[in-house]
C-alpha cells in the first residue's frame, strides 16, 4: 500500500501544537520543557479513562499490544475532545526501530488516524535509528543535552521519592518535593541552565540532600522492584496505577530508571557489530557514549549514597548482570536489560519483583517470563511475579497475584526480623565495578 500521509514539516514547528502521550509523569514534564526551549509547542497528554482503551480497541487491531492501543486511544481521545485546533495539531510518538512490534506503532497510529477521520493530522517520529528521515522534527545537540538531563534528573527524583515516601513522617512531603524540583529544573531549562556536567553533578547532590532532609521513620517494609515492557512498566494508565497500589500495600517501590533503557539502546548498537560484524568504529562510538554517560551515573550514585540512599548499579555493571542467563545479543523490546534489571533488583535488596508486560508481549516471552526460572535458580531469594496487562484484564486478578508476591515478601521480612543472623542480600554473580578503561575504543 502506498505511503501517503501528512508529514511534520519545519514550518509546523511554529504553527502546530505537538501532543505527546504520557509515560513517566516526572520525566515527561521536563522533556516537554526541553522541547519548548527548542521552539516547539508541546502538550503532554493527561487524558485517561475507559474511553481511551475503547478508542484504541476500535481503531487498532485488537491483538496488537496494549501500549499501542492505549497510546493511540489517548491520541484519538484528545483529538476528539474538541480542545485542540485540528488544523494546527501534530502528534509525536517514539519509535525504537528494533525487531519488536513497537517499531510499528507510528504506522498503526497513522492507519488509525486515517480511519478515524484525522488523516490530515501529521505525526512525527522520535527515534535515534534514522527512521523517518524526512520529518521536520529534528534532534539537535542542545535538545539532546536537555533530554539527557531531563532523564537523569527524572530518574534521580523518582528513585529518591520512592525511597522516601513510604517512610516519611508527614505524608506527601516527598511527592511535593519531587514536584518542586521538577518545576525548578523546567525553569532552568527555559533559562538554558542546568544541563552542563558541572551543574548537573552539583544539582544531584542538592536534590539528594533535600530528600534526605525529609523526616522519616525507617521501619522494615517489603521492597518491590518493577520491571517490564517500558510502557506498562512506567505508565499508570498502562499498569492500572501499579505504583500507587504497591504504595497502598505498604511497600517500597523501585522502578529502575529510564536512562538504563537509553543506554541499553546505545549499547546494542555496539553489540550488534560485535556479534554480527561491521565497522568497529561503531563499537567505539557507542562505548564512548556509554563512558560519557557513566560519568553522570557515578556522580548520581555518589550523591544518593552520601545522602544515605540506595543507589542503583551503574549501567556498565548492570549489563554484566545478565551474563550466564541471557546473551546481550537479545535486543528486541527490553531484551537482556529486563533480565539484568531483575538481577540488579534481587541483588540490591529488592527481591520481590513485578514483571509487567502487555498480554502476549513477544520479547517478554523470552527475556521476562522465559528467564525467571534461571534467575530463581541462581538467586533463590528472587520472588518474581509476571503480570499481564490488556484492555480487559481486571485489576482484581492482577492485584491478587501481586498480593501473593507481597505475602511471601512479608513472611520473609518477619523471618528476618526474628532470626538472630543479619539478613543477607545475595551478591551478584557477575564481577562488577567495571573500569571504563576496560571498554573497547581509543584511549
Amino acid at each position: 500500500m502506498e505511503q501517503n500521509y501528512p508529514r511534520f514539516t519545519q514550518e509546523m514547528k511554529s504553527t502546530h501544537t505537538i501532543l505527546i502521550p504520557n509515560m513517566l509523569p516526572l520525566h515527561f514534564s521536563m522533556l516537554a520543557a526541553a522541547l519548548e526551549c527548542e521552539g516547539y509547542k508541546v502538550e503532554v497528554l493527561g487524558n485517561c479513562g475507559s474511553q481511551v482503551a475503547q478508542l484504541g480497541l476500535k481503531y487498532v487491531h485488537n491483538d496488537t499490544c496494549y501500549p499501542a492501543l492505549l497510546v493511540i486511544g489517548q491520541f484519538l481521545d484528545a483529538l476528539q475532545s474538541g480542545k485542540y485546533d485540528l488544523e494546527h495539531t501534530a502528534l509525536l510518538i517514539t519509535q525504537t526501530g528494533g525487531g519488536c512490534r513497537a517499531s510499528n506503532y507510528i504506522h498503526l497510529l497513522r492507519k488509525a488516524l486515517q480511519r478515524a477521520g484525522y488523516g490530515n493530522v501529521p505525526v512525527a517520529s522520535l527515534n535515534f535509528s534514522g527512521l523517518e528521515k524526512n520529518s521536520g522534527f529534528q534532534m539537535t545537540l542542545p535538545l539532546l543535552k536537555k533530554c539527557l538531563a531531563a532523564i537523569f534528573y527524572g530518574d534521580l527524583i523518582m528513585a529518591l521519592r520512592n525511597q522516601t515516601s513510604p517512610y516519611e513522617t508527614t505524608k506527601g512531603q516527598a511527592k511535593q518535593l519531587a514536584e518542586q524540583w521538577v518545576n525548578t529544573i523546567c525553569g532552568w531549562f527555559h533559562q538554558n541552565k542546568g544541563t552542563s556536567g558541572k551543574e548537573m553533578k552539583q544539582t544531584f547532590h542538592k536534590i539528594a540532600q533535600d530528600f534526605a532532609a525529609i523526616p522519616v521513620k525507617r521501619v522494615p517494609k517489603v521492597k518491590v522492584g518493577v520491571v517490564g515492557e517500558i510502557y506498562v512498566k512506567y505508565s499508570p494508565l498502562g499498569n492500572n496505577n501499579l505504583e500507587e497500589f504497591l504504595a497502598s500495600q505498604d511497600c517500597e517501590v523501585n522502578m529502575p530508571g529510564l536512562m538504563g533503557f537509553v543506554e541499553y539502546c546505545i549499547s546494542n548498537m555496539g553489540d550488534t557489530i560485535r556479534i554480527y560484524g561491521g565497522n568497529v568504529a561503531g563499537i567505539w562510538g557507542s562505548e564512548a557514549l556509554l563512558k560519557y554517560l557513566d560519568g553522570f551515573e557515578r556522580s548520581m550514585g555518589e550523591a544518593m549514597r552520601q545522602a544515605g540512599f540506595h543507589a542503583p548499579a551503574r549501567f556498565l555493571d548492570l549489563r554484566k548482570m545478565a551474563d550466564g542467563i541471557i546473551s546481550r545479543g537479545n535486543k528486541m523490546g527490553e531484551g537482556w536489560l529486563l533480565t539484568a534489571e531483575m538481577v540488579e533488583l534481587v541483588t540490591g535488596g529488592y527481591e520481590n519483583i513485578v514483571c509487567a508486560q502487555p498480554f502476549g508481549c513477544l520479547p517478554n516471552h523470552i527475556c521476562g517470563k522465559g528467564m525467571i526460572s534461571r534467575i530463581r535458580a541462581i538467586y533463590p531469594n528472587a520472588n518474581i511475579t509476571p503480570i499481564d496487562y490488556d484492555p480487559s484484564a481486571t485489576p482484581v486478578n492482577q492485584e491478587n497475584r501481586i498480593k501473593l508476591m507481597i505475602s511471601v515478601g512479608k513472611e520473609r521480612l518477619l523471618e528476618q526480623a526474628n532470626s538472630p543472623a543479619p539478613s543477607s542480600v545475595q551478591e551478584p554473580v557477575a564481577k562488577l565495578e567495571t573500569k571504563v578503561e576496560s571498554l573497547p575504543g581509543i584511549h
Partner: protein
Amino acid sequence: MRVGLDIGSTTIKCVVLNEQDQVIYDTYERHGSHITQKAQELLQRLAKEQLNGKPAYLAISGSAGMGLADGCGVPFVQEVFATRVAAKRLAPQADVVIELGGEDAKILFLSGGTEVRMNGSCAGGTGAFIDQMATLLKMSPEELNQAAANAHKTYTIASRCGVFAKSDIQPLINQGAAAGDIAASIYQAVVNQTIAGLAQGRPIQGNVLYLGGPLTFNSVLRKSFDETLELTGVCPEHSLHFVAMGAAFYADKEMDLEQVAHAIEKIDLSADYTSQPPLFEKQQEYEEFHARHLKASVPCVPFGSDCGPVHIGVDAGSTTVKVAVIDDNANLLFTDYQPNLGNPLPLVRQVLMQLYQEHPNLKVASLTSTGYGEELIKEAFRGDNGVVETVAHFTAARHFLPDVDFIIDIGGQDMKCFKIEDGAISDIFLNEACSSGCGSFLQTFAQALGYDVKEFAALGLFADKPVDLGSRCTVFMNSSVKQAQKDGASIQNISAGLSISVVKNAIYKVIRAASPEELGRRIVVQGGTFYNEAVLRAFEKEMGVEVVRPDIAGLMGAFGAALHGKALAKQGQTSTMLSAKELQEFTQEIKNVQCNSCTNHCQLTINTFAGGRKLISGNRCEKPVSGKTAQSDLNMYAYKQELLASYKAGPAVRGTIGIPMCLNMYELLPFWHAFFTNLGFAVVTSPVSTRAMYIKGQASIPSDTVCFPAKLAHGHIRALADMGVTTIFYPCMSYNLDEQMGDNHYNCPVVAYYPEVLAVNCPELEGKTFINEYVGLHRPRDFKKKMHEILSRHFDGIKKSEVERAADLGYAEYNAHMQKLRDKADEMMQQAREQGKRIIVLAGRPYHVDPEVNHGIDALLCRHGAAVLTEDSVAHYSEKVQTTVLNQWTYHSRLYAAAKYCTTQPDMDLVQLVSFGCGVDAITTDETKEILHAGGKLYTQLKIDEITNLGAVNIRLRSLFAALDEKDRKGE
C-alpha cells in the same frame, strides 16, 4: 475460637476452629455473586450459633474477599498464602499442593524451595471450565464425573481456554462420540493444562495434596492427575476448606462478628464501576423499536390440501437443530427449533416422521442440510443437497432484503458475518479462535447467575447503568463480571453489559470495523442471539443504523437451506429423502476407530445407517473414505516436507550434531545440514512433530501465551535428548537473510531468541552441549569468521578455512533448496492451470509446514480441488511491496509480496495462516488484507493453535470457494 472465611469466585467457605484448632463447624455454599449479603448472613449466623456472641480471631481470604476485607477492617490473607499456612500445619509431610478453584488453579511447591504458582490471566483448566463443559454436555458436574468413570478412551481437547475446548468437543458430540469418553477427555485436558501452565519445568513429585472443589468432587479428575503424574495423591480431610483454615490460623485480631457483619452492611459498593449509556432512555423508545422489528416477518401458511411440493431445510448447528419447511412460493409451512442434545439425528428423524404422520400425502421436492451436521444429515436421511452454512444464511437474508450488503449471524457458539458485493459474498468473518459473546456464552452466564437466558436478557433492557465489560475473551469476561459484581453492579446492569459486549466483540473483534459505513447500510441480523432485544438494541446503537431482524432470526439457516433446495430443484422433482417407512426403520450405529493408514492416526468416527450406508468423519485425507492417496495432489506443503525429510545424517567423523526441527529450522535446515555435514558432523534432526511429542515437552514451557510453534520446540529438544544426542545446535538470530524485499530483515522476537528460552528452561539440556549462540547469516563474510570463533569454543581443531568452505556449501545448498521451491511452484502452477484447478497460496511462515502446526489444512485445500503453494515459492514474482506499516521482517515481506502477486493472477488466491498469539500477525493481517482488497481479491485468514477445529476451517474454506465460484460466474 478462630474463624476463617474464604470467598472465592463462585463459593463462600467458612470454618470455625476451637481452642485446640479443631474444626467445629464448616460450610461450603455457592454465593451466586451476592457476596456482601452472603458474607453478612454467614457472620451473623456464626456469631449467634457458634460463638454465642463472643469475639473470635477472624481473617478473610479468597479472590472475591479482597475488597470486602478492606471495607470492613478484617485482616486479609492472599488465598495461595493461606493454603500454604494451612498445609504447613495440617500436612507437614506434603511436598506439593495442587489446588483447583472456581477460576483459579494453583500449585504450591512446599519442599525444596517453597514456590507458589497460580494461573495467569487465563482461567482454562479450572472449575469454571469444568462447569462450562458440563453445561455443554447437558450434565451436572456430578454426572460428568460419573460418566467419565466409565470411559474407554480419551480424545485430545484443548483446555487452555474453554472456548477452544468447546470447539473441540462440539465436533465430537456431533460425531456421536460417547459422553463418558468426552467427559474423561475434559478431565485429562484440565490435568494437562495445570501441569503445562503451572509446573513450568519443575517436576511434581513426592506427597501430593489435592485441594479445592473440582478435585474434591471429581474422583476421575484425581485419577487423571495420579496417572499423568505417575503417583498417588491424597485428597485430605477438609480439602475444600484449606484456604479458610489458613485464614483462621493466620487471624491475629479478635473481633466481634456481629460488628463485622454490621460493617459489611455499611460498605457502599455502588456506582464504583465504569458504565455506559442505557439501552433505552424511555419506555416509548423501546415500544417504537419493538414495533419496527415486528414488521420483518415471513408469511406463515398452513399446509395446502395437496401437501406439496415442499422443500425441507435442516440446519444442524452447534447447539440447536432447526428445521424449516416451505412451499413453492417460499411461504413458511412448518418450523422446528430445538436444542441439540449431542446427536442431531434422532431429533431430525422425529421431526421428519412427524411431518409424514401429520401429512400422509406429503410430497417432498427437496431436503437440504446445512450447519455442523450437514453431511451427517444428508447421508443419514439421503438428502438432496448440502449447502455450506454461510451460503444458506445469505440466501435467507436476501429473501428479506434483496439488496442486503451486510449480514451478521450470532449463533450458539459461532458468529458469522459476511459482506455482500454485487450479489455475492465478498468477505467473510468467522470467529475462529474465540467464541466470546456468542449465544452459548450468554446462556452459560445466565445459568451461572441462576437465571433462564430469556429472563436474564430481558433484565438488561431497562438497566440504568450497563456495566462496561470490554470486548475480550469469555474467560476475561468472567473476571470482569466478577469485578462488576464486587463493585456493586446490579444484575440488570450486568445483563445489559453482557449484551453490549456481545455486540462489541462482533464488531471490533471479529469484524474489526471502525465505522458502520465500512460494513454497509443494509444490514440483516440473524441467529438466535438476536431474539435477545438487548443485543439487538445494542447492535443498532453501536452501529448507528436501523437493521432488519427477521422474525425467524434463529431459523435463517434452515430457511435458507430450504430456499437453496427450492432454487436447485427441477420442475416436478421428488426428493431422494427416506420414505416414511424407511424413517421408521432407520437405525444409526456409531463406531470410533483409529485410522492407521498413515502417521496422522486420525480418530475416525464411523456412522453406519440402516441399509449399510456409512459416513466416515474425522479424517484428514481421502484415504479411509475412497482409498485414494494424496500422491496426485499439487501440494507445496507436502513437497517441502519431503525435501526436508531427505536430509539424512552423514558420517560422524567429528561427532554428531542434533538439530531441533522447529521455527526457522524449517527453512534453514538445508544450510545447517550442508554446513555441518561438510565439517564432518553427522546431522540428526528431531522427528516429525506429534501431539505426544508436544505433551512430553510441555512441562518446561515458561510462558503459556507464546505461539504454539514455539511451544513445540520444547518437545523437539526432549525428543533429541531421548535420542541420546549430546550436542544440540540451535542458534539465536536477530536477523534473517536479507532478500531485499523489505526495509529491514529481522526475525520476530520469538523466532530470533527462542533458543534462549530452551537453554534456560529445558531440564533435558543439563549436561549437554547446547550451542545457541548468536549468528548472522545475513553477512556471509562475517558469519564465517564469527562461526569459526563459536565452533572453536565447543570443538577442537576446526580450521577457519574449513568453516569457510562449509559455509559456502551451506549457502549453496540453501539457495538450491529455495530454488527448488520456486521451480516446483512454476511446475504446479502450470499443472493446475492445465487441470483447471484453483491455486491457493497458503501463506504463513516456514514452520507452518509442520503438520502438527498446520493441522492438515494444506491437504484439506487439496481435497477441495485446489493446488496449494507457499508464500516463499511465489514471493519472488513480486517487487518489494510498498506497505503502510514498517516492512521489517523477512518472513512477512514475503507474505506481502505473495499477496501482491496474487492480485495479478486471476486464478490465484491467498489464505493466510495465523498462529494464535502471533503478535506480529496483528500487524501483517490488516496489511495483507489491504493489499488483497486493493487488488480485488478476497482475504481469508485462518487462526490456528495447539488444536484447531478443522470443521470451522472447512466452513471457512467452502465459503471461500463458493464466493470465488460466484465471483467467476459474475465475471463471465
